[in-house]
């Protein structure tokens, strides 16, 4: 496989053909913020939080092929502002009440907001969805009011579990994640599915029953570390 070099925020890194900009950055220990992308899953390119400038053009790093000699801007004030806008949009699209959410501290949306300094009151209106919670399944509950439409559960179930428990329905602002049946109990979803595991849903939409608060708030992954620490950590080692 042919390898070549490109730069991200002035740091020269190595990349190989077939990699996306994000793949190459990950391998080099440079974190590009993301929400819909997840290791081991197909790239979706939907959340747009990974927007970078590649040779001056704004693209999603998770889908844009790495190319020889590319100059990529990742953490500039301008790009961070775009990302903060996108994260704020997601906060305002759903109902994200961190203090009462089981995912607080493990939530990638919340962690991304901290990373991007989303500290001031936001300027957008709240859309306040009002969707019924699906608690039909003995081991799993689904609260799509918190869903950020990243589609990670859909791809995990389809491609890793080989099942297809989840899918998108509707269009535009009404597009949402739904299950393959009248409710979750009438699907073949199982608590041992990868799609149901904690790492797949970045927020608190998929809830594993009887496991809530097993680790107390304050001691969770992003209570202790900034999101992206694992990838950046590779570089510091």
């Amino acid at each position, binding site marked *: 496989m042919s390898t070549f070099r490109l730069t991200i925020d002035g740091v020269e890194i190595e990349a190989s053909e077939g990699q996306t900009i994000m793949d190459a950055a990950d391998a080099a220990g440079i974190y590009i913020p993301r929400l819909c992308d997840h290791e081991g899953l197909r*790239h979706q*390119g*939907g*959340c*747009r*939080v990974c*927007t970078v400038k590649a040779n001056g053009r*704004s693209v*999603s790093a998770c*889908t*844009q*092929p790495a190319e020889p000699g590319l100059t990529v801007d990742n953490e500039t004030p301008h790009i961070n*502002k*775009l990302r903060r*806008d*996108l994260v704020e*949009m*997601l906060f*305002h*699209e759903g109902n994200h009440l961190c203090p009462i959410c089981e995912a607080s501290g493990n939530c990638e949306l919340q962690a991304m907001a901290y990373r991007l300094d989303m500290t001031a009151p936001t*300027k*957008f*209106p709240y*859309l306040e969805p009002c969707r019924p919670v699906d608690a039909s399944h003995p081991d799993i509950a689904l609260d799509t009011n918190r869903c950020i*439409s990243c589609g990670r559960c859909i791809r995990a179930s389809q491609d890793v579990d080989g099942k*297809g428990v*989840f*899918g*998108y*329905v*509707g*269009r*535009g*602002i*009404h*597009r949402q994640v*739904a*299950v*393959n*049946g*009248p409710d979750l109990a*009438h*699907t*073949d979803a199982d608590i041992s599915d990868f799609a149901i595991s904690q790492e797949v849903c970045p927020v608190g939409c998929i809830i594993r029953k009887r496991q809530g608060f097993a680790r107390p708030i304050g001691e969770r992954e992003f209570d202790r570390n900034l999101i992206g620490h694992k990838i950046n950590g590779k570089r510091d080692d």
Partner: protein
Amino acid sequence: MHVTDTQLTQASNWPDVVGICETYANDPHRMLDILRAIQDRYRHISQEAMEVVARQTGLSKIAVEGVASFYAFLSSDPKGRITIRLCDDIVDRFAGLTEIVEAFESELGIRMDETSPDGTFSLEYTPCIGMCDQAPAAMVNDVILTHLTPEKVREIVARLKSGERPEDLISHRFDELSPRERADRMVDGNIRHAGAVLLGPVPEDAGLKASLNLTPAQIIDTVEASGLRGCGGAGFSAGRKWRFAAETDAERRFIICNADEGEPGTFKDRVLLTERPHLLVEGMTIAARAVGAREGIIYLRGEYVYLRELIEEVLADRRERGLLGDRILGEDGFDFDIRLQMGAGAYVCGEEGALISSCEGLPGEPKTRPPYPVTRGYLGFPTVVNNVETLCHVARILDRGSKWFFGMGTEGSHGTKLFSVSGDCRNPGVYELPYGHSVAELLEMAGGEEAAAVLVGGPSGTMIARDTFDRKLTFDDLATGGAIVVFSRERNILEIVEYYMSFFVHESCGYCTPCRVGNVFLQKAVGKFRKGLANQADIEYLRDLSATIIETSRCGLGMTSPNPILSTLENFPLVYSAMVKPSKDRTRATFDIQSAISDARHLAKRRSYIFDRDFGE
């Protein structure tokens, strides 16, 4: 899979659904055709029907539902036997839509978005159906009605209630009419100015015959040398696009004609599809020879279903005459055939990636680029997507030569272009002109000299004011797919902008965050200006949010959807500043205290001492 009660739906209970799936060989790529057929047959697509379709096509039910719930013309709730869709484009609104709505509601005894209890009628709105030159217009099942008036509506409803079919409204001899006669009785041609290339006299298949004397590479050279640029909006060189597709190694290649024509205010492809269908197919056939494609698709927007049989007839006729199919014009190895793919109500399907998704039986979501369709398009094969007008031009270029075409227009914008002119002008219709005319010149021809604002290129284009009507219709100045919407001084610019933002909210596919969510926020913010609740900072907010949406969206829809706002902020700034007022309640004007406390009033079951002045008196 875990079998449940609802999943026990026996295929045998749904013989028609099974039959429909079998008509399409249970092919999941023909999902849109299958679902359209079920919708036509049952007036809705029930959960049970989706399960049967899923089983027949080997997909999951949620995948079928994902498609069924994407398209506006498919529904999970039963629709009336006669579904009346009123075009609610801004041009129709200004042409008296409100009175039309009132007439339909009172005659039918139902409100908009309702179905009559006996299941006979449904009444709903639909975005621009491509009839802006003859507004107000409506679709009644597959029939188009134009120039509606309240009197006509009363007559229409009376006749439908008496048992006549929608087709009978067009002619009592409807069944005996040819497809062309049917189309002509429903819709006016409105060709106002015929240019040298497309709408003047055109010899039959002269371009196709000339192409037989050229090698595929020479055809591409000819098209590239003509300077022809795509007429669907983006203006990419047609010859170069073909070259990319021809150079990609592949077993199959495809030519797709984009006849989705969804940009509000555009209807020139409708006229070409009616008046020049042979020229279009000729152009596609030439493209096929040039890039080495054996298969083609015409993607026709659902709103133009009234043209389906006309196009099918043209395809059949050409097959019969050896102009389509195997060994075209007797030439060994020149094989090409075309299928017609109907859309089902989704503007985004005009975007070439979404169009390909839709042809593949998927929800109409754009594809990740790269790869581009010319290298990996329909079913993963190299695919050329061209607009109807672009393909018609090709046939003429092959007949008359690239120099002839290159000689028309201006530098960088060669040949002629069709403009769809509508709104506040005396002669709405289609004008074929060489590139380079000014907006003022076109307005003069169309009888729109009194215009206060002109929208060039539809809502994703630019709204200009009188002081810049001397701007030129070229790729370098005002690039346009052809929509020219004229607004007089009586029109409220903010009402127009708010309408177009609601259009983009309705038509966003929802795949990416900025377009899905950001456009809703833009629409709400414009609404604040209209209600007089905006303050100075909201102008900056509109600019700032628009910039984020444009820069981060995944496809051209989100990259252009803020244009109605940005171009009016730029060219009509007073319209916004006039609406910025200090608030009566001594709060920030952006903060609407009345709506903020309305929930509290409701919960407390009483009114406010401070903000409801009459309370407690």
